[in-house]
């Protein structure tokens, strides 16, 4: 894949005294036609990274290099609407850059239609709803035909239906234009939905950049495991044959080759932890007690007590076991060895990161 933006040895310092913050990124490439999702907790430096990549904030050291001639455009978390109509908002940047009128007409009509707001063209932008404004901001950015598009929390504050439809339109616009996209979001589900690769920032450091599935299933640290939704992190000790012993009577299978006696974290994504209904998927790891049941209408989440440890798994809401299970029920659990991700644990007894 061709890189359209390269970040090298970047250091960006902000603030002073106790409020001082430093972002460090050794190397990060944005490729044409891909979506790179940047995840991380609040204050990790996600927005600073975007602003520096956009050239809107200066780097203290290092470089952000544009490989192509195309523009780098950024859509902010709370996009502004200029005074005037929706159409004016999309056209103004093109006009300011001296784009020919017929080209402005074509690009703005395309962008407005693609994001489903062509019917609002003559409406005042100041009267748009949050979702419509988000669509306007994306249409305005796409009309510029950038080679790199930076999106800061594009789904923030939208209801789930609006998020769903906007992420669909966004993904289809990206496929159509081949623009390289960096999207910062705290919403893991949206990041998974729109991204090809994922980068995880922790305290100003870029800890992991990899293909989406690799980051989701093989996070390089327990902190990143938490960020990417590997919420089942159990302190364990390796035994012969790749078993990770959580305690004397609870063991997890794994394919890991660390030597016996090594203190580790055993990580399991909730969707990989199965409530065993006798279909033989994975290896049985014993019984657990259901201590909490929550649902969002799509997934039912079970919080389970497995010995002294707490585990979480998801079921499809409203179907099969999800309809029958009750608090205090005992269920059998199973997991495939390849779904247990082993991470080094510096010393015994420390709590999982929150």
């Amino acid at each position, binding site marked *: 894949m061709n890189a359209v933006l390269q970040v090298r040895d970047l250091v960006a310092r902000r603030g002073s005294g106790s409020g001082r913050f430093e972002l460090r990124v050794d190397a990060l490439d944005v490729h044409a036609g891909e979506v790179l999702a940047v995840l991380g907790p609040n204050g990790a430096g996600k927005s600073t990274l975007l*602003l520096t990549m956009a050239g809107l904030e200066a780097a203290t050291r290092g470089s952000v290099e544009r490989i192509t001639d195309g523009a780098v455009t950024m*859509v902010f978390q709370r996009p*502004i609407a*200029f005074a005037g109509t929706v159409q004016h908002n999309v056209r*103004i940047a093109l006009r*300011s*850059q001296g784009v020919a009128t017929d080209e402005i007409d074509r690009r703005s009509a395309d962008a407005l239609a693609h994001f489903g707001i062509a019917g609002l063209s003559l409406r005042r932008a100041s009267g748009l709803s949050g979702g419509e404004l988000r669509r306007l901001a994306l249409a305005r950015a796409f009309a510029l035909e950038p080679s790199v598009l930076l999106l800061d929390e594009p789904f923030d504050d939208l209801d789930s239906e609006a998020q769903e439809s906007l992420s669909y339109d966004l993904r289809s616009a990206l496929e159509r234009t081949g623009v390289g996209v960096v999207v910062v979001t705290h919403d893991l589900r949206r990041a998974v939905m729109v991204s090809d690769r994922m980068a995880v920032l922790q305290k100003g450091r870029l800890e992991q950049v990899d293909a989406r599935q690799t980051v989701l299933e093989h996070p390089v640290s327990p902190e990143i495991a938490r960020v990417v939704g590997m919420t089942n992190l159990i302190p364990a000790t390796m035994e012969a044959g790749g078993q990770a012993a959580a305690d004397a009577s609870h063991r997890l299978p794994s394919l890991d080759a660390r030597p016996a006696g090594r203190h580790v974290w055993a990580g399991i994504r909730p969707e990989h932890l199965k409530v065993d209904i006798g279909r033989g998927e994975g290896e049985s790891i014993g019984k657990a007690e259901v201590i909490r049941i929550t649902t969002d209408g799509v997934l039912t989440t079970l919080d389970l007590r497995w010995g002294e440890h707490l585990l979480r798994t998801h079921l499809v809401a409203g179907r099969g076991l999800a309809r029958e299970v009750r608090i205090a029920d005992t269920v059998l659990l199973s997991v495939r060895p390849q779904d247990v991700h082993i991470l080094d644990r510096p010393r015994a007894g420390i709590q999982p990161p929150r």
Partner: protein
Amino acid sequence: MSALDAQGLLEITLRTLGVCLSALVISLSFGVPIGIWLGRRQFPGRRVLLGLVNSGMGAPPIVVGLVVAQLFFRSGPLGQLELWYSVEAMITAQVLIALPLVVALVVAAVAALDLDWELQVKALGIPARWRMWLLLREIRLGLLAAVIAALGGILSEVGAVMQTGGNLEGETRVLTTAILMYTRMGLFESAYALAVVLIGLMLVLAGLLTWVQHGDRT
């Protein structure tokens, strides 16, 4: 001293408009850039400057007139310019009265924009000249309020204008100083004629503001 005739009324009205519009243009020329700068930038001492601007809004015009008159007085620091009792001195006083109003209202209008407004506009690749045009367009109602407040303050000002212009017939006499003079002389018809013109100017201004505001919302 005789009552005011139509020729005299026209002459005073035109001079008033000339003085006031000159003061307004100068106030806006300095006040708008200063207001935008104070509204958008963070720097040490900004609060002090804003405090000075706010204090300036409440400064008694008579005191402003006194200071300007002292400046242009023959023995004053700018005495060699020979501008005491001149239209230029009146304009200077009016600028000093209007400037804090313009700056404060522009600061308020700019501060009402999103904190990252400028970054967002830059992110769209919009050049600096267009960014300024967009900014002025965004704060247009604040600018309009600044124009009206400044013009209202200048047009109705009498103390500072009297001190710096002296109400000289055919030279520095304007509507407010003329009203004061004819009232003192007991020539109430002339004073009322001037007052009607002054109020008429104010009403035209208010009507213009309402029309522009209404046009902006529909």
